[in-house]
């Protein structure tokens, strides 16, 4: 006769098995590692708020499943980010990791995540190293490949007939990708190419050299506070009228313009999104964010929001069951959601194929903001996809 205790144990095990194999998980754990302190904090906060906005609009769910979002500050430190990722995977047992701003951090964290069989959804950093030969089945970038916006600006200044350019970026993977991307589409001559220290605050020396080199125009990539510093100092040196300045949305975003003010008026910059893009999804998004935060969303907010929309669509498609990685991956690849930037789909390397827009810094009322002025690329894809065997 089978003892009662064994029967109970069998029953309990059976019950457990039933409880863990239903179609939908009870909740989904998402780990968000992002920069919430120090100079990059503004970007991290925007990514987080965008992501949360999408969850809040769905009553705390994504794809109909309750979401447990664990947000941890990486303080823009590589070792820190790696440690957090390990903790999230082992202790918290998250299903998905997202949130990182910086390319050097993403390159350190993504192998840990994908090796554990989990998914990384990048709302920002898209280093070339993950787009080509070493593309990853479980890595998706919902924003851009690092080069994309810079490629757009390379094309734009070429179209506008500038022949002698001075270009500048910080010395880190994202900076190298930026200038590489710019040069891929810029056809004129480069008379100065400068790499500054990441986190540099004063650009007087570089600006003096730039003026002395007498270029037709200047192009720079300095994300976050670095960009605020550079643009203010460029304008104070009286160069805005003398040597036109071009950049990407990263340096002329809504949050940055609040800190730079009228110094940035007239600058043209490229982005994959603009708050005044005319589509219903975008109008609803801008409206909702303004209502919640009392200001116009930045590019980073839109990227955090879309990372959540992507997950929402994929979790819906697999009915909340993430246990089948192949099915979930296929659902992510379909990117079946209304993107706020209009047309959007994934390339086979899991990076976007999308339009790149030109925007101009203008003053509307007494707010310095961006206005959409044209489309530089339609259905643009990155230059590394061909090397990706996926």
């Amino acid at each position, binding site marked *: 006769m089978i003892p009662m205790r064994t029967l109970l144990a069998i029953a309990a095990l059976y019950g457990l098995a039933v409880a863990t194999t239903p179609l939908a998980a009870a909740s989904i754990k998402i780990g968000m590692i992002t920069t919430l302190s120090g100079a990059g*904090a503004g970007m991290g906060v925007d990514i987080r708020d965008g992501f949360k906005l999408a969850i809040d609009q769905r009553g705390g769910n994504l794809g109909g499943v309750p979401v447990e979002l664990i947000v941890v500050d990486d303080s823009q430190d590589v070792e820190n980010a790696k440690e957090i990722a390990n903790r999230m995977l082992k202790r918290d047992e998250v299903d998905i990791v997202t949130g990182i701003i910086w390319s050097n951090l993403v390159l350190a964290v993504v192998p840990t995540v994908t090796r554990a069989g989990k998914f990384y959804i990048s709302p920002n950093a898209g280093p070339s190293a993950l787009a080509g030969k070493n593309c990853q089945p479980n890595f998706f970038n919902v924003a851009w490949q690092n080069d994309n916006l810079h490629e757009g600006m390379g094309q734009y200044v070429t179209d506008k007939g500038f022949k002698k350019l001075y270009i500048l970026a910080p*010395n880190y993977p994202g900076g190298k990708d930026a200038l590489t991307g710019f040069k891929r589409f810029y056809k004129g001559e480069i008379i100065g190419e400068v790499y500054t220290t990441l986190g540099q605050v004063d650009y007087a020396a570089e600006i003096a050299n730039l003026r002395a080199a007498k270029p037709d125009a200047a192009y720079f990539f300095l994300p976050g506070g670095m960009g605020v510093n550079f643009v*203010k100092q460029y304008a104070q040196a009286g160069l805005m009228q003398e040597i036109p300045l071009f950049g990407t949305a990263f340096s002329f975003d809504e949050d940055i313009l609040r800190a730079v003010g009228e110094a940035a008026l007239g600058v043209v910059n490229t982005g994959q999104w603009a708050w005044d893009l005319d589509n219903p999804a975008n109008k609803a998004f801008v409206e909702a964010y303004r209502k919640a935060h009392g200001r116009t969303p930045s590019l980073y907010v839109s990227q955090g929001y879309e990372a959540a929309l992507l997950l929402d669509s994929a979790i819906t498609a697999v009915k909340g069951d993430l246990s089948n990685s192949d099915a979930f991956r296929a659902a992510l690849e379909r990117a079946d959601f209304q993107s706020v930037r209009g047309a959007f789909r994934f390339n086979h390397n899991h990076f976007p194929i999308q339009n790149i827009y030109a925007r101009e810094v203008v003053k509307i009322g007494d707010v310095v903001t961006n206005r959409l002025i044209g489309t530089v690329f339609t259905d643009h894809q990155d230059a590394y996809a061909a090397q990706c065997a996926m």
Partner: protein
Amino acid sequence: MTAQLFLEQTLNGLQQGVTLFLLAAGLTLVFGVMHLINLAHGTLYMVGAYVAATVTQVSGNFLWGVLAAVAAAGLTGTAIEVIALRRLYDRGHLDQVLATFGVILFFNELVKILWGPQALFLSPPAILSGTVEVIPGVPYPAYRLLIIAVGLAVALAVRQLITSTRTGMLIRAGATDREMVGALGVAVNRLFTRVFAIGAMLAGLAGAMAGPLLAIEVGMGEHILILTFVVVIIGGIGSVRGALVGALLVGLVDTYGRAFLPVVLRGVLSPTAADGIGGSLSSIAIYVLMAAVLIWRPRGLFQAYGG
């Protein structure tokens, strides 16, 4: 490279130097007189910048902003000294580093709670927002000239304070032999608070003056603090004269390095390699300078009064 460009870069170096001096003067005094390693000195710089931006915005006058920043930094410094640092004078340097690092974290969070994580806006006063042609053919930002002038004036004032006031005499005496000053009946505690407050006000002034040039954001104090420590070490711990010379040296070497190293390297290397290596080399130039000074004079250029 033209002579104009060289002169312009010299002005840039001077301007960076005097900003560093405003920070280094306070740090070196606290270090020399109180034997305290204060990592939170950059925090007072940040407080100065934030208060300057807010008060300028409200009052519409940059001067009020600067005065309020100096006052706020002085008060914050005094509070930090009385509440936290006073307990650390007899402890080892490691305890001081840990505690003052804690102060940094505390104030970074506090500033984020009060002002939010996004950078603040502060522009130079309208009359100084243009350029002046001090060097023929080179329009130079008027505001940067003002910083140089203010920095040099403060350097003179601090020198006056150290050499010909009673407080200055006590500061010099304290740097030489702290115990003896106490034994002679000077209220050392009060002297320390005064020294710390002076250092804090200088840091607040530096922050307010840097505000219109930079992004005013959480963490802005940490980056500049590293350079400030380099200045203090080069100049000699406890020496205000050393802080001035060290600050100008660091400012000039850093600026020249960034401005001219890539150009020089272009003479021997391909442009891409020169730009890449030049950028990396120039960012270590000041540390090479520090190492060289320390080999030549292990206690810094101006060793302070025996201490």
